[in-house]
């Protein structure tokens, strides 16, 4: 259930170019959040909350980690919040990733600021005894983050658009380097999701979508996406942000 909570900022780090990691303390969300869910964060002076995917939780320390890219005035302002300050947060929002019991080898494909929810999922899958392979795409070497964290989960391939680190190109170019897997999970910009789902059309997979949101709880119909059945729709904030790759029309 979504609650409105105050979250204490316990750590703030710049972890890559324009990329900020916030560790937030809150008992309720740390105990209840599932991989794929997001927090809806109020930024002082801004009328719409910012949806941020959860990158990891620590149930013992009662903390939640989120990452965001400084991309405009709202995220700039959020990046200026200091340790010890409180954030007004709705969460955990959304449905989270569905995990199939029978799948043993899982491919994670994250692009840019779509990488964080892949980490929460990857940690969870490894805890369940599953094998995880990760392909992570970034703009350039300076944008790369969480490489060591993903390496600790399993084989990790880094791709940069300009080739300044790892493989050169797009995450889809690295798919040829990956052996058999039973299911894939992906999050990233829309063109990447379109390319990934097209290339992995024969595979079972789940995608996590982002969209500009209003209420974030399913009331305002701002973040809808058409479904592949006739004239249907889903609300990204409430029915998603995770969907089966065949469920919605990108």
């Amino acid at each position, binding site marked *: 259930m979504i609650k409105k909570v105050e979250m204490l900022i316990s750590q703030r780090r710049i972890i890559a170019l324009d990329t900020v990691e916030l560790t937030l303390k809150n008992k309720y969300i740390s105990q209840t959040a599932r991989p794929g869910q997001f927090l809806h964060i109020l930024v002082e002076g801004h009328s719409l909350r910012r949806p941020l995917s959860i990158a990891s939780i620590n149930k013992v320390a009662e903390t939640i980690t989120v990452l965001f890219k400084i991309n405009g005035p709202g995220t700039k302002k959020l990046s200026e919040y200091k340790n010890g300050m409180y954030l007004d947060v709705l969460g955990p929002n959304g449905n989270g990733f569905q995990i199939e019991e029978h799948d043993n080898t899982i491919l994670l494909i994250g692009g840019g600021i779509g990488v964080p929810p892949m980490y929460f999922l990857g940690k969870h899958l490894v805890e369940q005894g599953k094998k995880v392979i990760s392909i992570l795409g970034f703009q350039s070497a300076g944008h790369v983050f969480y490489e060591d964290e993903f390496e600790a989960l399993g084989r990790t391939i880094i791709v940069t658009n300009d080739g300044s680190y790892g493989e050169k190109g797009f995450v889809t170019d690295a798919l040829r380097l990956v052996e058999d897997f039973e299911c894939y999970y992906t999050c990233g910009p829309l063109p990447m999701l379109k390319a990934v789902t097209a290339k992995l059309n024969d595979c079972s997979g789940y995608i996590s979508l982002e969209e500009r949101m209003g209420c974030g709880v399913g009331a*305002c119909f701002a973040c809808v996406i058409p479904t592949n059945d006739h004239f249907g729709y889903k609300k990204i904030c409430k029915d998603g942000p995770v969907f089966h790759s065949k469920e919605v029309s990108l």
Partner: protein
Amino acid sequence: MTDLRIELPGLQLKNPIMPASGCFGFGREYSNFYDLSKLGAIITKAATGTKRYGNNTPRVAETSSGMLNAIGLQNPGVEKIIASEVPFLSNFDTSIIANIAGSSIEEYVAVAAAFNEAPQVAALELNISCPNVKEGGIQFGTDPLMAAEVTAMVKRVSDLPVYVKLSPNVSNIVEMAKAVEKAGADGLSMINTLTGMQINLKSRKPLLANKTGGLSGQAIKPVAIRMIHDVSQHVSIPIIGMGGVTSAEDVLEFLLAGASAVAVGTANFQNPFVCSELIDELPSILDKYGFSSVSDVIGKGVIV
């Protein structure tokens, strides 16, 4: 003890606070946050004759002290709303005001008539002011003759009191208000959103897929106050005021301007509890400014 009750055509409200149409869906999501029975009323999301998908995304954009939206009247259609949404809302001890929209007078009339079969609905809000659909809505809201015609036709078929929701995107809102009053409107609700646009500097394109959208939030409050102030002096039907209400002080200001009740829209997105909190805070704010009841305040700020 401060008296928050207010009586309007078809509505006996325990307090003057209600969520605005389109910002609260059909109440389901917000019922997880607090007991909707606390609300004076609920104005539901617009109903059209058949289901509508609405516009492409992005449908919202943040602005300074507000937001633009271009949802495009997405809804499952009036029959489904009556069958599955109205019964849910009738579990709560609050008045249901159904917002209705259409592309033609025939559609408005059909939707209005359909709500005669929903005894739980206490009143209609006639949406002639949605700026985000190509057909219907706004052209009825900017021409006083068309506004009067659709009002009269809806009044003819409906058993319910009709509150006409006015658009601020007109040069003379008093003329619009007088036209619908003469056509039989039982009340007014105002204001709907102001048409606006935002251009993304990188893409050099409008941020909203619909290009234009309706501006709401705190940015439009002074426009709403001015229009309610002006209209209230020229009509004798009550006004449900809206436009950027965020605090109990804002509620007081709308009442002073001439509104008899107040709807809250965009503020629900920042704070899902806002309507509930305003109801809690209103008595002390009224008391602070020397009022013992909501009805005492209405129009006290109007300068004739």
